[in-house]
């Protein structure tokens, strides 16, 4: 038996294999008799891709699966579905409902599409007996993954045709998500842990006193100016909100002493909208200076799945066709650079991925 947990499946682009990964996991857990709750932060199960017009893998589900999806999606599903509860949350496709599959078939999913709602959905699915919740991601969206215990990233040729670039991106993601430690572990003393209750971005000194504070959201490098005046007595920094690439670049210029402790809310705040290379460079620099990095909420990237497929645009006919890059090379390059387990979800058995999910969040 696995402890109750929520796993997200995100993608670096469309057509990277999110749905295939989901299907593979659903199948695996079905044979193991694990009660699964499934929801989506995007729109899944459609026959034809909204952008490319190419056929997509349909979501075939079996009896007993718990789902949270928008009302209008039920009409487009062939599985027999019994509604358990209406959540009263509006989406472009009607209100969200919690339901159970009574007879196997195809479904279309569109669930909560913001973190705030995903939290409620998660709690509800657990209350209906889900042991594991799978959150299918959406095109390029990662923010709601903050409500999961860990996520799988699907990547591949759709993200970039150059498998080396795919591998570098996967490497950055894995490092940004997994390298920083738990803030509680870093700060240890409960009095210091209290610093993380701050609603502002703060810098503290060796006695744990806040010496400077600015806005929680670091959008504009100018916001960091007050920290220059307090750089010498600083020992730690905590930012509860988003920090942009420009601010990270500025942050690195502040002459803080070696051995600093940098704490951010979670990896998502360093990823969304940012140049991952800059984030990664920041982390490397911090490390070189003997400083440490931590997250208030860890969000491990537990695995990467790779997909050589991509939709190739045809100029002659203004449409897309199915195409692939070298599968072996893609798998090999991503595995060698990304410090997490990497799978070719179409060819590999799901057992290893499931074992990794089993271990997630146990530390």
């Amino acid at each position, binding site marked *: 038996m696995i402890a109750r947990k929520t796993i997200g499946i995100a993608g670096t682009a469309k057509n990277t294999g999110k749905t295939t990964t989901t299907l593979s996991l659903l199948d695996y857990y079905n044979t193991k008799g694990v009660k699964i709750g499934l929801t989506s*932060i995007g729109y899944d199960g459609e026959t034809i891709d909204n952008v490319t017009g190419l056929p997509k893998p349909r979501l075939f589900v079996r009896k007993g699966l718990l789902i949270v999806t928008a009302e209008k999606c039920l009409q487009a599903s062939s599985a027999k579905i019994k509604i358990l509860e209406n959540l009263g949350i509006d989406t*472009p496709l009607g209100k969200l409902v919690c339901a159970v599959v009574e007879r196997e078939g195809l479904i279309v999913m569109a669930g909560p599409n*913001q*973190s705030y709602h995903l939290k409620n959905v998660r709690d509800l699915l657990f209350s209906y007996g889900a042991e594991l919740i799978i959150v299918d991601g*959406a095109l390029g*969206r*990662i*923010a709601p993954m903050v409500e999961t215990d860990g996520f799988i990233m699907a990547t591949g040729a759709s993200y970039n045709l150059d498998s080396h670039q795919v591998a570098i991106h996967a490497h950055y993601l894995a490092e940004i998500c997994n390298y920083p430690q738990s803030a509680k572990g870093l700060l240890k003393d409960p009095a210091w842990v209290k610093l993380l209750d701050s609603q502002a971005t703060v810098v503290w000194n060796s006695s744990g006193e806040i010496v400077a504070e600015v806005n929680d959201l670091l959008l*504009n490098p100018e916001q960091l100016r007050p920290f220059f005046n307090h750089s010498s007595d600083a020992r730690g920094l905590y930012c509860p909100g*988003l920090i942009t690439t420009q601010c990270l670049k500025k942050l690195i210029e502040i002459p803080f002493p070696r051995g600093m402790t940098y704490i951010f809310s979670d990896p998502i705040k360093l990823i969304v909208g940012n140049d991952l290379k800059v984030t990664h460079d920041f982390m490397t620099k911090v490390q070189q200076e003997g400083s440490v990095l931590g997250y208030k909420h860890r969000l491990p990237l537990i695995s990467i799945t790779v997909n050589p497929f991509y939709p190739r645009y045809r100029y002659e006919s203004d449409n897309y066709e199915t195409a692939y890059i070298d599968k072996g090379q893609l798998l090999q390059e991503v595995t060698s650079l990304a410090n997490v387990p990497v799978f070719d979800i179409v060819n590999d058995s799901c057992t290893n991925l499931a074992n990794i999910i089993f271990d997630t969040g146990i530390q």
Partner: protein
Amino acid sequence: MSRKRVLLVPLDPVHDVGLKMIRRGLDEAGHETILLPPDLPVHEIVQEIVKQRSDTVLVSRTLGYGVAELLANFVDLLDVVGVRSKINLGIGGMAIRPELAAELGFDAGFGPGTTVEEALAFVERREYVEGSQKVVKNKRDLAEGYSYSFRHAGIQAKLNLIVDMILNWAANKTSPGVQRAAIREELWDVQRWRNYESMTDFYNEYKQYCDDLGKNYYEKGILHPKTRRFTKEEINSSEEYVRRTQEVIKTPKLQHNRTKPSVFNQYGTGCPFMDIGHIKVSEAWGADGVVHFDPSWGARTEGFLDGFLTHQEDGTVITPANLNRIKKALEESTLWQVRAHRGLNTPETIVLAGKIGADLTKINIAYGSLGAGTDPARMTVDGIWAIRYAAKYNLPFDVVTNEELCGVPAYKAFAGMLITTALGIRLGGKPILQPLFCKSPEVMVGGQMKDNYVEFNAAKIMALRQIIDAPMWPGAPVGFLTQTEDRVQSSASTAFHASLAAMLGVDAVTIASSDEAYSGGPISVPSKIDTLRAVSEAFRFFGQTPLASTPQMEVWRDSIVSGIDSVLDKIVERGDFVQSLYEGILGNREDGAYPGRNGKDTVTTI
């Protein structure tokens, strides 16, 4: 409703016209709007949203390469900075659909055709009920607001003499058609019939005045050879079709900012089930009214059959059951015309149509006698009674002319139309003038349409307006003889003719489908949609632009008026309307008009 702070974000490099339109609507509704400049970097927009503490953010963006990723990232940023749960986030633009909005993390997606009302409902967090803004169509009384007073005293005086002449001639006359209408009027109760109650009194009396077709039906149950009854299964699926269609149908308005003309088209495939399908399509594409077409043999037959019957050729058989089924399938706003302008069942058609609930009918003694094959004496007696019943059942009737198919010149056809009109007014009816907008034999020979189709058609309306204050309904259908087998040409031509009707401010217009002249069988559904779409587009194009009068129109107007006057002179001089019909004063053999022979010698003296 509390005042909302709405931030309008054109994420597009240039396009923000949709947002500007929505902004006007929101401002008018009392909300506070801030429109950002186009093409700001995403981070700046997010900052602005945080700073403005907006309740609602409406983004416009046309979908294109990489745009979905850009939008997803934008939503992620809002989520990460913690404002996503505090705002109502909508997206609009070309190719935006609700599925895509869901996928990208928005609360709503608005595609092309979104109304300001929809955006307003979203901003005010009301449930948008489609249909709350749906155009609610009401039936128009086409005759409303007309005094029926004559503007041309000379013509009025002559028409009065002719009406006296007709009524005196007919005072002691009757016909089997008049008898059947009286029996239908007295003994046939629509409620009893609908309840399947026995109506033996009626049938026993009625069949005596029918010809063999009717007698065989009522005595032996034999149907017309080209008809059959629907099966139980067909009836069930017809009812199911009507039910399902009525649940979802919307009835758009074609006229843009005008209130008229009401747009009619015709049905009459022979199969009432198929007719109902055609009617529902016409309604769904904006037709305001539909016209029932019966088979040509219906005009030559004494008496109606009954039963839900389908006919294997053009024209849908008039039976109580057929009319009743069609009536039940109509939307409440749809005007329904059952024609009775020709043939041996003319007065009875009106009694039946009136009892079953038609809105309009069609009567013209001159056309029925000279263009539709009914004996002039019979048509006159029956026509008088038809008008009396139309007045009783409050059915306004158009008085159609015959210049198109027969080739009778407009002034002669109009003289006949005005006689029926004057008779109608005298008998308390509400006649509607129906001049044809057509490329008739008269103009093909005379060259009036060598340059354009506008001036001669306009001159017809101007001439009639100079004579009388009465409603007008060009038909039937307009521009029929300008159509070809090319559907685009036919649709365009139909739309231009309908626009001419609109610009002349007439009350209604009957349009053809794009294959009406060349279908070689029943009209097809797509071709009905063709012309309804084309007319809608043309009405939108011209809006309320009026048509300027030209010197040529005035010349033709005057010649039509004086032509009418001279025809009426001749009838007054002849002293006998029915004889005038036989003798060709209202259209002779040279014009292509032949006095009809159906029902000859059936008029009897009481």
